[in-house]
């Protein structure tokens, strides 16, 4: 990868946009024209991946003028994120692209874990334990299809100025000014808020000289995206000690008869040899059967890190997604974690631009770090189980897998990746702890749970703003009220009588009361 901007050369020669010729292209776009220098914008998003695009759509739909700078003039091909979680789909559904993602993707809820040649799984889980929700537990979808759907949705909004082939070369933090290189010129622009959504190698982070701390894992994995026809259930299948060799492997179904095969390779390997066609083919045949024809789509070898920045908010520059935090791929917590960031940030930026106290942005720093730490913790634990780092750690893993075949108690220890679910913030300053005694329902600091309602779905009724959720109408309600006139929905919230929930614009529960009184809202000081 060549993500480095052109070198400064004392100003005598024009800087050049980076050379991205090694990147395989899914879809090319016309480079956007170079504007005059000196413009000032409310929000500039640096990075046109799924995270930056999701924020652009969120703020764009809220009516803000958005500039989004993409250093590429294409959507990249290749194997990147494929698993999008229920929470991400709920967010995308609010933004109007959820159904398109589900229609194009492969929906799945069940994961199975196998060991060796044993046909029966030793452990399995269901990512949609609570049925009757609009969105599935997960979809598999190649990242480039997700990006294309987001690009199309953004293109339909005239207030989103999407600039292809515009690469940030320098930032002046004191002036909130960015210098941008295009193929036919250079310009600078200023912004009230700059969002760094520029990926794991984040040139923005590097230009600001900011920290990035954590662990690098010493193991290599091979991704083989291959095409073949086969009817298998759409489930996530994971093997420990697979019969065709190696210590673990993973199989995911993608759209268009493409399958993601993922093999653990070990640390001291010849990376180039591992991804040559013959060696990959031998592994693929081991997994899918020796006489099953398949076609190569994409092979790559990767290693990974679990790291994050100390802070995500630096004055008027806000880091989101991979630029702020990285996780191992076990658990699909990378892209889903990034979408969670911008879902958290969008309504807060909107409120601040409409006059709320800018200190609200600090709660993004707080809550996004809680999310990142939980994602890093879970993906680190999965990695430690899948790739034990010592003899004793390997012995514990073997013991768990031995016992799991016969004993129920051992199965919950089997860790092939704890898949991404929404993170809760019970201790956030935006969360008002329960003062009443509740049994069941959705606790403060957790995301609202979908339910069938009036022939549609509850989450789509919650929408974009602060709302109250109640079992019965509220007289002189200070906020719009969604009434749960459906028994199943009321049961999910343990709501009856005069009880109510206060729901944030990102559809998290801020507070709940057994007997609602408008005075109670004073505690929620960000309501504005």
């Amino acid at each position, binding site marked *: 990868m060549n993500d480095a901007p052109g070198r400064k050369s004392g100003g005598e020669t024009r800087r050049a946009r980076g050379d991205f010729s090694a990147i395989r292209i899914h879809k090319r776009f016309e480079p956007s024209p170079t504007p005059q220098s000196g413009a000032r914008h409310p929000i500039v998003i640096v990075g046109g991946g799924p995270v930056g695009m999701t924020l652009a759509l969120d703020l764009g739909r809220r009516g803000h003028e958005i500039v989004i700078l993409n250093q590429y003039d294409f959507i990249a091909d290749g194997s990147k994120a494929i698993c999008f979680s229920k929470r991400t789909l709920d967010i995308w559904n609010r933004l109007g692209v959820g159904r398109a993602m589900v229609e194009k993707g492969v929906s799945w809820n069940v994961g199975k874990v196998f060991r060796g040649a044993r046909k029966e799984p030793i452990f399995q889980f269901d990512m949609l334990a609570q049925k009757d929700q609009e969105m599935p537990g997960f979809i598999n979808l190649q990242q480039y299809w997700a990006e294309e759907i987001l690009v199309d949705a953004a293109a339909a909004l005239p207030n989103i100025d999407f600039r292809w082939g515009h690469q940030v070369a320098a930032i002046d933090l004191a002036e909130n000014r960015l210098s941008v290189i295009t193929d036919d010129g250079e310009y600078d622009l200023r912004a009230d808020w700059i969002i760094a959504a520029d990926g794991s190698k984040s040139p923005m982070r590097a230009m600001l000289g900011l920290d990035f701390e954590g662990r690098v894992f010493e193991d290599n994995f091979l991704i083989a995206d291959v095409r073949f026809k086969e009817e298998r259930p759409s489930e996530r299948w994971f093997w420990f000690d697979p019969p065709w060799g190696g210590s673990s492997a993973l199989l995911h179904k993608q759209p268009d008869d493409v399958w993601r095969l993922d093999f653990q390779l070990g640390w001291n390997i010849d990376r180039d040899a591992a991804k040559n066609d013959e060696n990959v083919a031998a592994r693929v045949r081991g997994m899918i059967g020796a006489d099953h024809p398949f076609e190569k789509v994409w092979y790559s070898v990767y290693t990974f890190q679990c790291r994050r920045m100390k802070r995500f908010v630096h004055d008027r520059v806000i880091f989101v997604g991979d630029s702020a935090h990285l996780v191992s791929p076990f658990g699909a917590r990378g892209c889903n974690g990034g979408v969670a960031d911008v879902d958290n940030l969008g309504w807060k930026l909107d409120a601040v631009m409409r006059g709320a106290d800018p200190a609200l942005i600090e709660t993004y720093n707080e809550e996004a770090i809680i999310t990142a730490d939980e994602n890093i913790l*879970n993906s680190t*634990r999965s990695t*430690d*189980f899948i790739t034990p780092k*010592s*003899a*004793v*750690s390997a012995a*514990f893993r073997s013991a*768990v*897998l*031995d*016992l799991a*075949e*016969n*004993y*129920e*108690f051992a*199965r*919950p*220890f089997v*860790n092939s990746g*704890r898949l991404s679910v929404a993170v809760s913030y019970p201790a956030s300053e935006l969360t008002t702890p329960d003062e009443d005694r509740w049994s069941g329902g959705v606790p403060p600091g957790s995301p609202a749970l979908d339910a069938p309602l009036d022939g549609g779905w509850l989450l789509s009724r919650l929408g974009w703003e602060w709302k109250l959720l109640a079992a019965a109408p509220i007289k002189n309600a200070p906020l719009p009220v969604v009434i749960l006139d459906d028994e199943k929905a009321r049961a999910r919230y343990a709501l009856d009588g005069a009880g109510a929930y206060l729901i944030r614009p990102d559809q998290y529960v801020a507070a709940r009361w057994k007997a609602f009184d408008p005075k109670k809202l004073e505690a929620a000081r960000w309501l504005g």
Partner: protein
Amino acid sequence: MARLNTAKNIASPDDVYEMLIDLHRDCDEPESHRRNAKLILALANHVGDPEIIAEAVALARRSA
């Protein structure tokens, strides 16, 4: 009579598993064996009942 509880009994298995692995961070193999032995002795004492411990011993001896 089976009295050893082999049903799921831990609310947060990942927290407990991490504790067990962390016990062995930065120590060599003989030290690891010793720490495991101490852990088993402490848990055996907590269980107390020799019949239950005998069942756990039999479980550990079984090959998968």
